């Protein structure tokens, strides 16, 4: 290791940073006696970058050279920017040494495509294989699968990685082909299918032989860029919802488009990345995954885009005043989850606390329930009955958005952890 690595690190982190997925959760690769690393439990953020985002993994490219020319990507071949390539040893060392100092949970490895997909994929596999087999590293590894790589290589990578991902980037095939002429949906969905097949195969094998190797235990994820094409939230969320129907798909990430190649007129000129829209998509994503919402309840032909002013759950509730008010002392957990302002935690607290005593506003506040939004949608012991039905949805909306002008500004990016309340 020497100073030259410093320069490479700078170039290759710069090139990797637009991929927003960072989570290191969802796996259970436990520590082994006398070895380095463990990826048990929840992903830990070891730091937060100045854009407020969690730093959990060393997010890095093996090389930022690329034979492709995707319009939305900083590393496209027609860009004139410093290029660098790590050797396998350098990257492995860097990961291990960062990990030993408690800087990171593990590695998030991606790469530009050099020579051909298999050549690139093979190099990536060597990095993760060395980490696991030579260094006995049990930390978290997220590896991008290179579109076009062979199934054999995907199968090998899956033995070492905790999670793999293939980014869709553009939610509509025509737009994708316009912006990335060398790609189509096939080139994205084929490697996704390889990963899924690997997982299912391994699950089968493990039924027969308990010690059959595990295959990407944390499943796969993908990312879509938001705001680079005219696609609607409806298109994005329908694709998301279809992806979540596949057992292997654990997370869909949304990345507000950052105009890295302003000269390319196929792309819109945005002053700022669409961060609020991105945030609303994450909220909608949570409704799909944890709140039992169907995608048609969130967006449809009459409402093809998410409301930027209010969160998607509140938007749904205002469109469906007939479902309210809900009696917090009696309603099912499922129904509590539908109340704007009540998150999973609050709903659980309510279910527990009402076993001991009937709940009024005072008790709700005491157990930490925030009533700002919820008050218009619930009844409890003694709450005045000014609910959404008496006030009318448009008035509730006005009350709740009155002061939010300021909020929209500094709400820039809210990390999608527990903000749906």
């Amino acid at each position, binding site marked *: 290791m020497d100073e030259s690595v410093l320069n490479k690190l*700078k170039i290759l982190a710069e090139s990797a940073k637009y991929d927003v997925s960072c989570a290191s959760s969802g796996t259970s690769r436990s520590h082994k006696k006398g070895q380095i690393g463990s990826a048990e439990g929840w992903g830990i953020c070891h730091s937060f970058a100045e854009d407020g985002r*969690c730093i959990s993994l060393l997010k890095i490219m093996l090389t930022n050279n690329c034979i492709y020319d995707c319009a939305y990507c900083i590393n496209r071949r027609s860009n004139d920017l410093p290029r660098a390539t790590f050797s396998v040893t350098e990257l492995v060392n860097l990961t291990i040494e960062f990990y030993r100092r*408690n800087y990171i949970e593990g590695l998030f490895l991606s790469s530009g495509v050099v020579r051909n997909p298999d050549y690139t994929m093979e190099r990536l596999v060597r990095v993760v294989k060395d980490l696991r087999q030579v260094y006995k590293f049990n930390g978290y590894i997220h590896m991008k699968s290179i579109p076009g790589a062979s199934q054999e290589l995907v199968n090998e990578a899956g033995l070492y990685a905790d999670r793999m991902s293939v980014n869709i980037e553009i939610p509509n095939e025509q737009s994708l082909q316009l912006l990335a002429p060398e790609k189509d949906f096939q080139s994205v969905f084929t490697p996704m299918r390889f990963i899924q097949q690997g997982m299912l195969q391994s699950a089968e094998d493990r039924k027969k032989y308990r010690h059959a190797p595990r295959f990407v235990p944390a499943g796969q994820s993908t990312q879509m860029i938001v705001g680079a094409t005219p696609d609607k939230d409806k298109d994005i969320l329908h694709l998301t919802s279809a992806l979540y129907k596949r057992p292997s798909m654990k997370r869909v990430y949304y990345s507000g488009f*950052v105009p890295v190649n302003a000269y390319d007129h196929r792309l819109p000129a945005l002053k700022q*990345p669409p961060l609020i829209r991105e945030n609303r998509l994450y909220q909608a994503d949570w409704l799909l995954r944890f709140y039992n919402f169907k995608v048609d309840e969130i967006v449809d032909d009459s409402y093809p885009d998410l409301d930027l002013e209010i969160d998607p759950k509140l938007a749904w509730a205002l469109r469906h005043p007939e479902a309210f008010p809900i009696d917090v002392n009696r309603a099912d957990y499922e129904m509590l989850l539908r109340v704007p302002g009540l998150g999973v935690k609050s709903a659980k607290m309510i279910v527990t606390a009402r076993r001991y005593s009937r709940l009024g506003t005072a008790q709700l506040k005491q157990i930490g329930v925030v009533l700002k939004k919820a008050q218009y949608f619930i009844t409890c012991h003694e709450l005045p009955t000014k609910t959404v039905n008496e006030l009318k949805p448009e008035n509730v909306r006005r009350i709740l958005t009155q002061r939010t002008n300021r909020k929209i500004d500094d709400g820039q*990016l809210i990390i999608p952890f527990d903000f749906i309340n």
Partner: protein
Amino acid sequence: MVIFIYDKTFDGLLTAVFDAYSYKKFPDILLGEGETLPLFYDESFTVTTDSERSERVWKGLQKKLSVPALSQLTTCWLSELPEIDLLLFRYIRKTIDAPRSIELNFGDPDVLELSKVFKQVKNERLRVIQFLRFQKAADGTYFAALKPLYNVLSLVIPYLQDRFADQKWLLYDLKREYGYYYDLTTVTEVHFEQKEGHLLTGFLDESIMDQDEKLFQQLWQTYFKTIAIKERLNPKLHRQNLPARFWKYLTEKRG
């Protein structure tokens, strides 16, 4: 007003519970040995810590409380908050007196309060796990030091044992002046008579650093700076997620 005087240990507190039930007197105030008594009070008792009695109280609690609720008691003790002992005393007393576990009865102010303290201590433990940074010394030991708000080091050790089983390490609390050292086989609590530079400042002097340590610190600092997306800078969120009180000991914030 009834005052109990005890040695400010957790065992002492449990002994005090035992004594209270045998005297049928319950403290309004708990004081440490040598602390000043208030001007007026009715009675004072001095508790002599006794492992047998404290053990009996603990066994009794084990029958009434779930494992997480028990660990909540010991965890909250580590908060070292001024009146945490009295709060724990009341909680334990209510547990003993109630026919069934009170642990989920958040309508009770003591139960609610204790759950809040618990959350705070657990948060601090998590932050230490997130933000502790090892520096490698020339002898191969990895050294990390910080000043946690609560006395949470002991709660962090299992995490370190899991991850860093093949390296020697020392995690040190600069505020409470003790630490835990792992020598590749066991973890021991350590106190130092003589405090060298890094036990005071938290930073290894370059003369005792591993030869590559400086480079890795620079690499990490570079990475940290580079990875932020300039178009999305958000100092407020940054501060909220990475509290300023940790910055001093964070390698990446010293670059």
